């Protein structure tokens, strides 16, 4: 029997799954009726009890985050959804919004009700125009159905939802940079404290949650805490979307209980590209230290991955087989971080600039073994020294790749060039492509 537990993705195979009608047909928008007849604090308590943890990368308990919003403070509160999904490998929020935007809207209504916000925002990645249109339509439909706007379901709760389209910066996924961007400024992380729960959007108490975190809430309200906590592991409850990409036969979204292993996921997804074997993979997007085939049985929950030396992150499993040059892969990621560094702090801004140059030389087989130590030392000067976590993400793949594949770096130096043929790693016809 498959270990999959499709909840969010249950109806993605229906042609019209993204429409308001389909969502209703499949039992959608029933959780709000339930939630809106509970006291807001009860909603928060339910989410706390479920043990739901943020799916945006850090895994912070969602109910606790909602509970931090000071109540009775006579201030506006804001509920902000982080749909900026830009991390290499991370590709769960986008298909979710494509296939079922209404589940997010329902989650937003419940969350806003719980924290007593009358304004909610979705900050969406600007490049995905097709998804933007779809979410916009869904919001309009929800307004038409009286599920957004004034006096929702006659319960006296008002909520306005605004879709804000980002301008193309990975850093705007970092929650405080997101808030700056949402306010119309250039997106750069803010100094904390104050945390968004105290002074977030327009300096008012604000919750920032990932799309998947919020979309998971309606099912919890409908099915109850016991249903949710029956899935997953001791400290990582429930189901989640695992995104498999790269050298697998059937890449895509796999919704399963937390704690499933890559070995199990590979079985479900048809295994590594036929004729090849697993070389390395990321457990949670490019910012998380890589794993190798020695980690096939690591339980993919927050504790398991962390005990094995990485992070569950966004559960973006990028799979690389033996045709892939580790140096080349790491260089590509590093180029991404260099391009996306916001420039605010020295280690990230200058460090990524330098790292790319060192890695380029190494990939071309230039340099000596001492350069590997220099590279590691550089990472040590960047990791944990920066203003936000972006730079940690930049250093992680480098450090972990040197941990597992130092010899491969040396092979480059010995050969004076990259010993791999990049064509063999591509997934398209290699004939004629250069």
């Amino acid at each position, binding site marked *: 029997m498959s270990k999959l537990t499709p909840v969010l993705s249950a109806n993605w195979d229906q042609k019209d799954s993204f429409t308001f009608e389909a969502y209703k047909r499949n039992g959608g928008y029933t959780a709000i009726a339930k939630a809106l007849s509970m006291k807001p604090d009860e909603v928060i308590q339910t989410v706390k009890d479920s043990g739901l943890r943020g799916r945006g990368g850090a895994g912070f308990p969602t109910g606790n985050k909602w509970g931090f919003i000071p109540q009775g403070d006579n201030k506006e509160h804001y509920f902000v959804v982080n749909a900026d999904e830009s991390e290499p490998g991370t590709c769960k929020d986008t298909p979710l919004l494509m296939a079922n935007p209404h589940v997010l809207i329902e989650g937003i209504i419940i969350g806003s009700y719980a924290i007593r916000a009358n304004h909610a925002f979705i900050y969406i990645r600007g490049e995905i125009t097709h998804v933007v249109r779809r979410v916009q339509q869904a919001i309009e439909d929800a307004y038409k159905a009286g599920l957004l706007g004034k006096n929702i379901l006659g319960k006296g709760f008002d909520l306005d939802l605004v879709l804000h389209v980002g301008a193309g910066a990975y850093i705007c996924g970092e929650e405080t940079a997101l808030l700056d961007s949402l306010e119309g400024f250039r997106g750069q992380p803010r100094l904390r404290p104050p945390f968004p729960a105290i002074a977030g959007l327009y300096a008012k108490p604000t919750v920032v949650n990932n799309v998947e975190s919020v979309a998971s809430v309606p099912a919890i309200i409908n099915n109850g805490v016991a249903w949710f906590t029956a899935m997953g592991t001791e400290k990582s409850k429930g189901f989640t979307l695992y995104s498999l990409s790269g050298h697998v036969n059937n890449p895509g979204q796999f919704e399963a209980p937390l704690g499933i292993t890559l070995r199990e996921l590979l079985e479900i997804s048809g295994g590594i590209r036929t004729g090849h074997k697993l070389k390395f993979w990321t457990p949670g997007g490019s910012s998380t230290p890589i794993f190798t085939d020695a980690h096939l049985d690591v339980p993919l929950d927050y504790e398991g991955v962390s005990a094995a030396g990485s992070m569950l992150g966004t559960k973006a499993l990028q799979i690389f087989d033996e045709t892939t040059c580790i140096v080349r892969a790491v260089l590509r990621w590093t180029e991404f971080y260099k391009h996306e560094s916001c420039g605010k702090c020295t280690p990230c801004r200058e460090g990524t600039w330098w790292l790319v140059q060192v890695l380029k030389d190494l990939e071309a087989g230039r340099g000596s073994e001492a350069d590997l130590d220099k590279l590691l030392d550089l990472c040590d*000067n960047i990791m944990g020294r920066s*203003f936000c976590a972006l730079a940690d993400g930049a250093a992680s793949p480098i450090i972990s790749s040197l941990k597992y594949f130092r010899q491969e770096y040396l092979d480059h130096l010995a050969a004076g060039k990259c010993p791999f043929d990049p064509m063999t790693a591509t997934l398209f016809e290699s004939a004629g492509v250069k």
Partner: protein
Amino acid sequence: MSIQELGADQQVQVEMITCVIDGFEITVPKGTLVIRAAEKLGIQIPRFCDHPLLAPAGACRQCLVDIEINGRAFPKPQASCTIPVENGMVVKTQLTSPVADKAQKGIMELLLINHPLDCPVCDKGGECPLQNQAMSNGRAESRFEGVKRTFEKPVAISSQVLLDRERCVLCARCTRFSEQIAGDPFITLNERGALQQVGIYEEEPFDSYYSGNTVQICPVGALTGTSYRFRARPFDLVSTNSACEHCASGCAMRTDVRRGKTLRRLAGEDAEVNEEWNCDKGRWAFKYEVAKNRIKNPMIRDSSGQLQEVSWPEALAEAANGLKNSRSGVLVGGRVTIEDAYGYSKFARVALNTNNIDFRARLHSQEELEFLATAKTNATYKDLDNADHVVLIGFEPEDESPIVFLRIYKQVHKRSIKVTSIAPYASRGSEKLKANLIKSASGSEVSAISALSGLTSKSVVLVGERISETEGGLSSIVKLASDTGAKLGWIPRRAGEKGAIAAGALPNLLPGNRLISNSSARVDIAAAWSVDSVPSEIGLSTEEMINSDLQALLIGGIDPMDISPEAKIKLAKKFIVSLEIRQSDITDIASVVLPVAPVVEKSGSFMDWQGKVRKFEAAVDQTLNRSDVRILSMLADEIGKPINLPTVNSARVEFESIGSWDGEVSTMKLVVGAGNKAINNDEAIISSWRNLLDKGSLQDGEENLAGTARKSKVVISQSRAKSLNVSDGDLVRVSNNYGAVTLACQISDIDESSIWLPRNSLNSQLIRNLGVVSNSVVKVAKA
């Protein structure tokens, strides 16, 4: 880099926190940042973005230290410039933590990879925090072998500030200063990653009156002053603490001189006055000192009417001859030091036996004279820090006393205090202060003043010298202050006016605020001066002296065009002894010209608007030190009635020993205000003030500075624009019987009956062009 005294201005008891830094225990007020607490122990944590007067940014990461609280260590080093101390905190800086030390060295290495390292040709070389800290907290050698980022350079972000983007360490001090302190967010950081850079808006230049401060606080040579760039190396300069001579804000300054020439001036530090800032005029207007038309030797006018250089004894004899035994008076000018003002004051009474003395080289009134001699002006910067409400009357702090503006802005920014301005329209400065504007035509402010309510003893009323142009204005202000208990500050534009009052350079006042009308005050002074008596008759004011039939006048630095269009012609009929730095309208008509020194070449002191005195020494070594008082003393000897003030120091000592009057005081005779003027449709009441940067003679020759002056415009109301059928930017002609000014108009929310023009700016020098500056009816037409 100074230690910020948190809580220094707070009377309330602040909670104290004890923590340990590098093994030393230290107790500091709650809220103190780790980096500041370390400073108190003499431990210097390297830093770039940190600045005690700016909100923390935590951007450069140079200040990383290890921190543990009650035994729990942070997993990674923390930015000490962003974290306040806590009880039980144990901090290990680079001195005791190898991790912190390596972290700092690592950051420094990274900061330098894209830095051009062109120190040998950089203005900052030799006084550069990057250079210094790279030596103290960096690796000896860089391991970077790659390609540096390059930019075109320099980029002019204004006519007076140039940006070298390669040198910039992106600390955001300049941008934070402009936004948080000056309220001029015209420079920002743009782009991202290593391409992040400081930039200006395409359509809005960096025309801030305070832009020079960004050059001063830039921790590298990325921002340089156009006038100073490539002119000197810091180690060739001799620095002297000085006082700004430009306005009554009273900035502490530093004057840097190389081989007898001033090369730059910087803001000095004075927490009570200018903190660490100054304005661009104070910083960049000093070329007048070395102008081509400096007078070097004494001159007398020969029979053909030409000035001829002569020896000092000849000139002094000629001057003494003309002054003694004639009905005479003294015009001091508003820019002299306290010591010089005291010299003029004593000279008039002792050598000329007259109370005909007035420092007011501008419009003035009898009511003002009464006010200056009697009013209690007790407001200070500290009062602004604690004010609940600041009222501005006939006073535009950003233009007329820029540090007063910064101080008010600070509280507006920090505590959103209330500001009210009585003015014809909301200037850019008053918009920045979010001032509640009470629109009043010039001349009719009295009703607005009398209608003010809600002031408390924590309120501060700041009055500009211009209010003397409104009859009854000062009287209603005195009444307002005494009715409400609000603190009152009178803020003249020029740096010498407050000191001149104290020195008794007024026709009704003797030194130390002693009224001439008071006989025991006169006896007091006569005793101090060892003379039989001082004249008892109230003297003539500036205007009266000019219009009178006095035969001779001794004149310090004044411009007759600041007083009235006919002043020069009238003065030309008298025997004039002029004490001047440069050739001027007065030396043009003087019979004897005696050269005196500009402030850099002499010592002295200025009294700021609060009454605080700032002493300074000569920055340029001049064996002669020709301060006015020294020359007056020689002249008095020549006249035969010595004042015995041969040096600045002797004048200072004597003046200080006289002290302030503690006897009975009199109150001001109040004057009733005039009603509103009636005007026709095509007429308006003119109002004006001087922009900070304008045609003022001390700014002569400063082209880069002039490049950021605000454009001359005539401000008109919406309805006037409609009736004139003009739109923003169209030319409008303002005229009267005397003359006309034509300027582009700016349509604004101005009092319907009023128009506003700059008083002394390019193409708008009102006394010269119109003969009036305020409170007068003019014709307005489309040009």
